[in-house]
């Protein structure tokens, strides 16, 4: 029997929920250790206790999160094996050996986690390096686990190592299929983004719930740090997304087109709207954050102008190229105006300019509260470079619009290089400039308005929702195939639902995930309250000690 039905919900929805929930928890338990390790390492090297405390607090979220990962994983596996027996039979046939080593690595990962978590206080001081190594091994096992699971998922999309009858000739060929590495990289980075935003949501809840000013200062800082890491890693995602898209395209151009310009193209319109909302929320948060810093008023003047650039940029960025929805519309379905805005060249220019504006906001933030004397030339150079970069990006975008495709692609690469070059050089120059800075007001942690924390919480919800939706798109692009071109889906739910329905599902899954995550947070909150390390806060100026570097993220 190839399929069994699940009453009421339908088999597909059950597996859909199981898979997404499992993926979200798996992403969480993969990202948080990575995040914790980096922070622990920074605290270790810079000798700042608050980093160590933060890393430790993050790991406290892990044991309950692991439990949910295992439960949702078991649920997904069980529903797949019972509802899609033929498909699972095929997959176990192909991937047999990997399915045996998979739990092994999972066990290693869990063991490392427990040691990492419970030995935290014992392995301090001289023995810190052992602890850091434990954290490293935890991350390595976790990454291997993910890579194995990715090989299954990517094989379904772009099977490799199989002949035309679907008989796999080489296991390694099946594992190392075309989309395996893009998926690995994309998920690795996206997981960090995801984990970082979830951690800052955790911090936001704690900020809102705490009365003590020391605690408030600490959680404010934690939310800020998480948000910064989330945004920074998010910058890489469009490029990794293009890499994944490129490999999908080389596996099957038709699949690539189905994704970007065919039945699923509207997913990307939704995605653009969602990402736009994310950047707006992040910008809102960081602008409210300026109020932490005394003497930041001159910078706040710029906020409306930035808003305007961001909104126009997003409008271009989210304009679809093909307004294709039905085969009839697909036939010559290029909107006369929208299609030109929706083309690659304006899009690349828009997104590069948006990133530049966000970077400038960040520079403002860094500079606020610091006074520099006698570096006017350097400052002029920095702004000159940034403006020049912006003009160059815009110019390339306009030119690329008229240029033939091959040249346009080269130009968009130049655009990215210009953007990265400007950011890198001005960042170094600005750091040099700030060395001579006199601090006239350091961040008053714990003094941001409450609504800034709502933005952090919203960001977490948005990224989870987005991940759910894009996961749907990645699966949906196979259309009526369990394994593209090899194993056909002949179940009653082989077609694609309308996007609204997919969004409904995604929302339900997101809400379930947060309900469960709320439990994880509660467990973590009640599993121990520790002394909060001193951070500068209202009335608690941050004391710069000898040998302590201010770590700028």
């Amino acid at each position, binding site marked *: 029997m190839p399929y069994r039905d699940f009453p009421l919900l339908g088999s597909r929805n059950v597996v859909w929920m199981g898979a997404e929930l499992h993926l979200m928890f798996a992403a969480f338990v993969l990202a948080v250790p990575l995040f914790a390790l980096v922070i622990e390492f920074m605290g270790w090297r810079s000798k700042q206790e608050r980093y160590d405390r933060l890393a430790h607090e993050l790991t406290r979220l892990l044991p309950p999160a692991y439990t949910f990962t295992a439960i949702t994983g078991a649920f997904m596996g069980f529903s797949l094996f019972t509802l899609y027996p033929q498909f699972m039979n095929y997959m176990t046939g192909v991937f047999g050996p990997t399915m045996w080593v998979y739990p092994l690595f999972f066990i290693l990962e869990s063991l490392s986690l427990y040691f990492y978590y419970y030995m935290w206080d014992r392995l301090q001081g001289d023995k810190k390096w052992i602890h850091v190594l434990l954290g490293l091994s935890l991350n390595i096992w976790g990454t291997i686990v993910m890579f194995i699971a990715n090989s299954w998922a990517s094989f379904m999309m*772009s099977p490799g190592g*199989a*002949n*035309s009858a679907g008989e796999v000739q080489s296991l390694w060929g099946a594992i190392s299929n*075309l989309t395996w590495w893009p998926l690995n990289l994309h998920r690795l980075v996206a997981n960090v983004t995801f984990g970082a935003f979830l951690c800052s949501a955790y911090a*936001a*809840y704690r900020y*809102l*719930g705490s009365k003590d000013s020391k605690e408030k200062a600490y959680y404010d800082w934690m939310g800020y740090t998480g948000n910064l890491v989330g945004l920074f890693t998010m910058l890489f995602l469009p490029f990794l997304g293009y890499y994944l898209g490129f490999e999908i395209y*080389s*596996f*099957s*151009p*038709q699949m690539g*087109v189905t994704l970007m*310009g*065919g*039945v699923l193209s509207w997913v990307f319109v*939704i995605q653009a*709207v*969602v990402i736009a*909302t994310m950047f707006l*929320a992040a910008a809102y948060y960081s602008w409210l954050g300026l109020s932490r810093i005394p003497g930041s008023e001159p910078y706040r003047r710029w906020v409306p102008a930035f808003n305007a650039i961001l909104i126009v940029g997003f409008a271009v960025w989210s304009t679809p190229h093909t307004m294709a*929805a039905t*085969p*009839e*519309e*697909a*036939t*010559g379905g*290029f909107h006369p105006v929208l299609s030109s805005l929706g083309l690659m060249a304006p899009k690349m220019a828009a997104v590069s300019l948006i990133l530049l504006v966000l970077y400038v906001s960040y520079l403002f933030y860094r500079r606020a509260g610091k006074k520099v004397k006698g570096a006017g030339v350097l400052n002029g150079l920095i702004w000159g470079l940034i403006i020049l970069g912006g003009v160059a990006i815009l110019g390339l975008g306009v030119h690329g619009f008229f240029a033939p495709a091959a040249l346009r692609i080269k130009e968009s690469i130049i655009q990215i290089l210009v953007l990265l070059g400007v950011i890198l050089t001005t960042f170094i120059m600005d750091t040099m400039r700030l060395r001579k800075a006199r601090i006239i007001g350091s961040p008053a942690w714990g003094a941001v308005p*409450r*609504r800034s*924390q*709502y933005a952090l*919480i*919203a960001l977490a*919800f*948005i990224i989870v929702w987005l991940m759910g939706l894009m996961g749907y798109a990645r699966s949906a692009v196979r*259309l*009526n*195939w369990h394994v*593209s*071109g*090899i194993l*056909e*889906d002949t179940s009653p739910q*082989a*077609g*694609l*639902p*309308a*996007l*609204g329905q*997919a*969004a*409904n599902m995604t*929302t339900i899954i997101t809400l379930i995930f*947060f309900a469960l995550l*709320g439990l994880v947070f509660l467990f973590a909150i009640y599993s121990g309250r520790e002394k909060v390390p001193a951070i500068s806060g209202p009335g608690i100026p941050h004391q710069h000690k000898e040998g302590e570097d201010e770590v700028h993220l």
Partner: protein
Amino acid sequence: MKYIYSTVPALVILGIFLWFSNWIPQTTWEPPKKLQLSADLSPADLARFGETLVKERGCLTCHTIEEGAGERGRGRGPNFAGIGVRPRSTPKYLAESLYDPGAFVVEGYVNIMPSAVAPPARLSYEEATAVVNYLLSLGGRPSVKVGDLPRPAQQAAAPAAAIPAAPQAPAPAEVKAILNKYGCLACHALGGEGGKVGPALDRREIADEAKESKLSVADYIRQSIVAPGAYLAQGFPNIMPADIGDKMTARELEQVVKYLSDGLSK
């Protein structure tokens, strides 16, 4: 409670996403159904089925049907409107374009089209015949019955997993081999070698004759091979075998046409 309260903005934003996703066009996609086409359907009936197939089997992710937009149109593959009367669109050529699109890649395009008889489109032989009739009906007249067209070499090859190659100019050696295979060089000369019964295949006059008959050089050469009597080269007898073009595969034909016309337009 306060936790839920501070989540309200997040929920409102999700609500907006939800509204937006339900507001945009709601298209569902159903897996294509296999058609049972009986062998005695008329070409016109087949063409009607062909239209459905072209719409349901994903051809329009790349091709467009835009009246008056020329051959290129704005899609990723050639415009279907008017394809039925394009000089190269013989039923056999169209069938081969479906079975093995990479064998002859239309100039200016990249070899990205998957075989229509392999997944995901997976046309059966009868369905492919229907599609050919539909394409012929776009500007021309559907004319083939089930059984007229050659069958695909093998049904359902594995999905293409190779990075598509750019179209290549035919290699001289390959073209020579084709010309030898069909005995063209018994009557024609190329590069000074070969028979004298027919005109040399690289003589300048071909371009002039093409101009006179208001065809591009490529179309003129193709016509001379497929229908030798249509336009007689001056001073030569009408003895070129009329069925010689039919014996060639579409790929061989197009290779020769491209090679000769490229040589003449240099």
